């Protein structure tokens, strides 16, 4: 018996295929924030130049909306 608390839970056993179109809101960094990001990276690395590895700073972006539309084909 399938378990509704598991991520692979499906109500129907019929195959469902969707053709997706994804619309995302543009995520533009304000100049001040883009500048602060590079500053923050410098702070993280102690001002040293880093080659081949760039630490990532989370939380510099803004929440964005994604809309997915798809046609359901059952059968």
């Amino acid at each position, binding site marked *: 018996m399938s378990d509704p*608390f*598991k*991520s692979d839970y499906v109500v129907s056993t019929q195959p469902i295929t*969707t053709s997706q179109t994804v619309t995302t*809101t*543009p*995520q533009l960094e*304000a100049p*001040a*924030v883009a500048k*602060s990001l590079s*500053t*923050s990276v410098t*702070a*993280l690395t102690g001002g040293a130049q880093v080659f081949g590895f760039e*630490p*990532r*700073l*989370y*939380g*510099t*972006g*803004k*929440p*964005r*909306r*994604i*809309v*997915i*539309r*798809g*046609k*359901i084909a059952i059968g």
Partner: protein
Amino acid sequence: MEKSQLANVAVKRTRNTRICQGDVFRDVECIEYVSEKRGIIEVSKIVFPVALVLTQDCDLEQESGSRLKAMRSNTLLSVLVAPLYNAEHVFQGEHLVDIGIKAETINKRRSPGEYLVKNDRPRYHYLDFPENTPVAASIADFKHYFSVHVSYLESIRRTNFVCRLSDLFREDVSQRFAAYLGRIGLPT
């Protein structure tokens, strides 16, 4: 916005074996709606760059322990999380512009901003992470929270975990959130 030397929280960078209160995750999705019309299904979701788990830790612990049991009375249906917004964006009132919401600016050099940074404004919680934690200074707005399914959060736990607030700071957030949620709005 440099990463400050004056962090106001302590964190743990190691992931636990379960979801914990105070866990910070990146790219957490909140489903706005799902609709179906004439065979076309539409899903709208908001992706929050960073979010903090608010659900009580004992509940999460019991939930984790109950999964393999026959009687699952302690199973949770969802986990409460609060988005963490980039502090600079909040001060500019632009933290939600990409989803069509403009907010008032908060002058961080005057009382409103200074009180916010000191966590003297009940609605907000300012988090300045330690230098070795790759998260920008952030603000939780206690008017904003949502729930995600346990299985969803569990599915992103390994890949999207960023850090976990240390117990004392986790309790601070929890207490302040509970106090704000339980406030009584009296008529003026």
